[in-house]
């Protein structure tokens, strides 16, 4: 099929599934509602794969020209599309909203390597999660939960929204997708809306995102004001061309403002400091939702957006620095909190924050492709971890506190092994997917002008290994203990196990698309920057070509071997740290269980600080929530007494006139005729007087 057809089908198929389930699910399908959504999402995945093959073929055919174009970046004719060549195609689906002089805001889709990477990631994880949900959203007798069809309708809607977000060819459509995924997130976090905590979490997520989205919206408006268009290609061309020509019309301040406003949106959506507070609470939603939306896909939208706008960000060193610094801070901050939590899903949530921090760190030092690579590997192992936690939760009758159970290894072997593999990946154990991607980011950071970001990354890597295995050892090892009310743990059904296994396979092998084999690399075999980076190269060539980005040195040519053997010490170091973290966790939680308690007691206030998540929620409550509430009360009082009063008076006037007019319209012909004649005479007189 043609690219355009495929690009249209990809969002429409899940939407069709979702709409059908919404329309007929409750009455007609009930506990078979999943089939429509599953079919839609799977079909969309096939479309995405087909899209990938077409673009990849194009890439290989035009590979040499593209590489030449990247290499000789400075010589490119400014009028040309920068860097993309034939690889990026924008389709205007139709004209949407008229905007001023013969200008339209269109529904435009854009297909390029970045889009395809995102589509493949989103759709493959979505397919797994939809499959998993079939087993998860049932009780132990296999009866569908209340709201089963609603759940799948929302899930389908989410996949549609996410596809719209990544396929968008202009900022308006991006914003639309951005808000749509936010809406789906809200609906799904609050899926158990009878539960007050879930309703509150949904509200919190929505409100915190509002703050970020406000900035994002302003950023888009500013883009429109500056460039008078919202089309990606036009905006990026203008930024890149003005940069090349040394054009002063587009001031650095303006670009920095745009970049930072856009980043505001990313901070909200990807839960970076200081807007991270909603994500841990979002775990109130059903676990598949946490896996799909709050780990693998939606929360990475911010990373995707920054990568998409890499040209804009790369043009502003300050913005880049801020992105990197916030990423590093979030990575470390969230990892320290994760050390002390006991709720499996919350630990994973903080781990997600921390990993998202890595991605932003990578973006901030200009390693856009490495950040995307980490996004892609992270989706698999983190989704697998969440689904594993869901599997445990399902078996433990909703209990998820790792102090209440242990030793599940025997009873739940599939869950255990998949969880272990993904945990190893998350910890950064060599030869698993995250090892490659995380190391690239740290390497890029160390090679940049801000190497301390890289050191923070290394410390976080150690903490990551530790908290991951603390969780694994506490939950799955030691003697078997079950929470009250659960007679025996049991493995989940095939609907749930199959996605776990598939995702675990992804967690192991997904990284290999990003490495090449070469002599003298890590373990004498592996070099970073493989096919993945080659595929994405056209997207970032422009941003990376800019001398201000630190990664320019490594980014200009993506050939293997360029990375050099000097980086291998880092690989050895980080794998050492990973193993050391795992060993510590093993020693603390299986050998000498007294140590953690002793450390907690000894460290006192520091432990409390971590355990209470740095008191951020309390702080926000004090600084923002309560004053805002008070302001709201004041506004309400004002509305009730002042504005309502004025409105009543205003409404009274037309009401009185209405009363009079109604009296006129009594039905008596004489009155009507009189009115008509008087009216006619008056108008006629006026016409005669003026004509």
């Amino acid at each position: 099929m043609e690219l355009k057809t495929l690009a249209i089908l990809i969002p429409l198929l899940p939407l069709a599934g979702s709409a059908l389930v919404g329309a007929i699910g409750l009455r007609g399908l009930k506990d078979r509602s999943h089939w429509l959504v599953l079919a839609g999402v799977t079909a969309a995945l096939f479309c995405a794969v087909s899209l990938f093959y077409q673009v990849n073929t194009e890439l290989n055919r035009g590979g040499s020209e593209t590489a030449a174009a990247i290499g000789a970046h400075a010589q490119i004719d400014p009028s040309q599309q920068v860097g993309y060549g034939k690889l990026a195609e924008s389709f205007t689906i139709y004209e949407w909203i008229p905007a001023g002089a013969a200008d339209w805001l269109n529904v435009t889709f854009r297909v390029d390597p970045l889009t395809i990477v995102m589509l493949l990631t989103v759709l493959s994880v979505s397919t797994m999660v939809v499959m998993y949900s079939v087993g998860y959203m049932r009780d132990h007798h296999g009866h569908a939960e209340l709201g089963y069809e609603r759940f799948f309708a929302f899930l389908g809607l989410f996949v549609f929204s996410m596809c719209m977000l990544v396929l968008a060819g202009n900022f308006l459509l991006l914003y639309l997708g951005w808000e749509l995924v936010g809406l789906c997130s809200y609906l799904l976090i609050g899926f158990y809306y009878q539960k007050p905590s879930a309703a509150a979490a949904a509200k919190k997520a929505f409100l915190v995102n509002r703050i970020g989205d406000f900035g994002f919206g302003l950023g888009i408006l500013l883009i429109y004001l500056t460039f008078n268009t919202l089309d990606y290609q036009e905006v990026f061309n203008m930024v890149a061309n003005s940069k090349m020509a040394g054009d002063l019309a587009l001031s650095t301040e303006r670009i920095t403002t745009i970049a930072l406003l856009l980043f505001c949106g990313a901070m909200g959506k990807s839960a970076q400091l200081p807007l991270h507070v909603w994500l841990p609470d979002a775990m109130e939603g059903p676990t598949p939702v946490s896996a799909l939306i709050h780990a693998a896909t939606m929360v990475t939208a911010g990373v995707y957006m920054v990568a998409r706008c890499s040209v804009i960000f790369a043009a502003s060193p300050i913005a880049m620095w801020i992105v990197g610094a916030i990423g590093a801070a979030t990575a470390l901050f969230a990892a320290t909190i994760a050390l002390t939590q006991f709720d499996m899903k919350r630990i994973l949530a903080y781990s997600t924050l921390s990993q998202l921090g890595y991605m932003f760190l990578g973006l901030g030092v200009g390693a856009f492709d490495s950040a995307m690579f980490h996004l892609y590997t992270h989706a698999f192992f983190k989704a697998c971890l969440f689904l594993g936690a869901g599997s445990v939760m399902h078996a433990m009758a909703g209990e998820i506190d790792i102090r209440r159970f242990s030793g599940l290894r025997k009873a739940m072997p599939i869950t255990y092994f998949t969880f272990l593999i993904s945990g190893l990946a998350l910890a950064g154990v060599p030869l698993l997917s995250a090892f490659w991607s995380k190391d690239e980011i740290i390497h890029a950071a160390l090679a940049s002008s801000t190497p301390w970001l890289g050191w923070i990354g290394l410390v976080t890597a150690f903490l990551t290994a530790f908290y991951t295995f603390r969780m694994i050892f506490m939950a799955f090892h030691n003697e078997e203990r079950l929470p009250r009310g659960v007679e025996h743990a049991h493995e989940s059904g095939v609907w749930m196990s199959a996605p776990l296994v598939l995702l675990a396979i992804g967690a192991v092998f997904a990284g290999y698309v990003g490495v090449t084999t070469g002599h003298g690399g890590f373990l004498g075999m592996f070099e970073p920057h493989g096919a993945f980076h080659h595929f994405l190269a056209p997207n970032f060539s422009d941003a990376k070509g800019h001398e201000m980005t630190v990664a320019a040195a490594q980014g200009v040519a993506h050939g293997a071997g360029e990375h050099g053997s000097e980086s291998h010490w880092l690989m050895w170091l980080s794998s050492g740290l990973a193993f050391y973290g795992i060993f510590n966790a093993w020693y603390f939680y299986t050998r000498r269980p007294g140590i953690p308690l002793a450390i907690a007691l000894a460290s006192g206030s520091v432990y409390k600080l971590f355990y209470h998540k740095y008191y951020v929620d309390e702080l926000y409550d004090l600084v923002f929530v309560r004053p805002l509430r008070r302001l709201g009360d004041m506004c309400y009082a004002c509305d009730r007494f002042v504005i309502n009063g004025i409105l009543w008076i205003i409404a009274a006037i037309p009401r009185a006139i209405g009363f009079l007019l109604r009296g006129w319209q009594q039905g008596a012909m004489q009155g009507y005729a009189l009115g008509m004649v008087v009216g006619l005479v008056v108008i006629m007189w006026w016409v005669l007087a003026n004509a």
Partner: protein
Amino acid sequence: MPTGLLILADMWMPSADDLAAIGPLWGFVGTLVAILVAALAVGRNWRVTGMLAALGAAVTGWMALRTVMSPPTNWAGLSPNNSPMFVADQFSAFFVLLVSVFMLLVIGMWWMGQNAGLPERLSRKGDSVEFFILLIGSAFGMSMMVSTTNLLMIVLAVEMASLPSYAITAFRKQHAKAAEAGLKYVLFGAVTSAIMIYGASLLYGHYHTLDLAEIGRTIRIEGAPTLLMGVSLFAFMVGVAFKVSAVPFHFWCPDVFEGAAIEVTTWLSVASKAAGLGLMLRIISVLTFKIASPETLNTLATAIAVMAALTCTVGNLSAFRQTNMKRLLAFSSIAHAGYMLMAVAIVWMNNGSPTEGVAHPAFSAIVGYISVYLVMNLGAFLVVAMVYWATGSESIDAMNGLMRRSPLLAVMMVVFLFSLVGLPPMGGFMAKLYLLYALWDATWYSLVIVAVFNTLISLYYYARVARAMVFSDDGQPAIRVPMVGQALATVCALVVLYTGTVGAGTLKAFSDDRAKDLYAVVKPGIAVHTAAESARPDSVNENGTLWNGQNSTTVPNNDGWHIGLAARKVDSDRNKNGE
């Protein structure tokens, strides 16, 4: 046989192309004949009659659609430039399409009414043949209204549309209110027709021709005696104002709407307004004498604008205290006619100046508004009708608690009501936005203020209905909604939502295309006479030179949404001086 066609046959030998072009009207006539023949063949069967009428409406609509979609060279001798008795172009085809689509929907509604188990006194199943003869007769008249530029034909068409409407209003003859409504309608119709014919006779007396296009050409060359033009044109427009129920010719509207059966009310609320607006635009399109006597045109445009503002305001204010849903919607329809008349005033104002461009935003706004209004108004009436069939009451109290009694109907009704107010994300919002934009673009800010103010107050009475449905549940029993009704209402609601969100641009593009169709007709008419006119200092120039010689800026002939603002400024300055 309708008189119009006899004259047509007498005066003009049709070619095959022309026959095809007037196809839509043959559709209506053929349906009339088919219904009569079927009545003779199978007796008075309401199902057969209804089916035939629906089929006829569908075929007519399809033929009209073909003409609308065809390239604009198809209408051969039927362009107004050739001064025919009968004009068939894409513009008229579009209004025929509107009328026939609407007729199809009204037939669906009527069908449900027949199935709703009303007493014979109200449903009059036995008289379905007469009912459809009258309905199609008025549809034919409405189609004729937009298909001619001849004064006599216009008068005949208006009568053709009106007379069956009078009868159909009083169709439930044992119903006292219906009889009263019919009588009122006929009296007002007679008076306004008289005034209209008086205006037409003045025009004929002065110009010795019945052809409006010819009159327009004469004025463009010789100028016009302003007093005569003002009086005669305004008197002529009174007949049309009556059809669109503009203040002060609106008095018939609420009583007629209340008295007539609900499907008839629905029919009159949209179809006759569409035809009236179409006729107004048609008249403007041939009387392009802005250059020759701008004062007259400005006075007339201002008169229309004042009428529009009054129509809007009186309609909305009167609706405030209505307790009968049909009366409420009647006043609402008056108000909506007012909004559209505002745009008509703009079209008048800029009429004939070359700066108006091919797709004047006001023109396009009218087309968009009437299209959306058709759907949302039908939807609202449909819900009221279904409640009426279930409860036998048309009072607003019958809507109480509808959210519980029939959630689907209630949600649909809220969609229609909010669309009628003009709230996003409904089609009514987009339509109103384009309309306000057109007013703004014409720098007629007072109209914008009136329109916005009216939108605000209209929120009150529409929201009152919504409040009754949602908050004032008085425990009435649930309503069983017929499947056809559900489907029809859902389709209407989807169209309203579509045009308000995803299809906002589609709506705009659609209306722009229709607007271009009319100007494709008009422009050649001007071009024919530019040679004669070019001797005059302030001449029309097809290249886009401004019409007043002193200020000859060249304005690019912009196809889009913005039309040279500078040029418009000059217009409005001239306008101010004129006053």
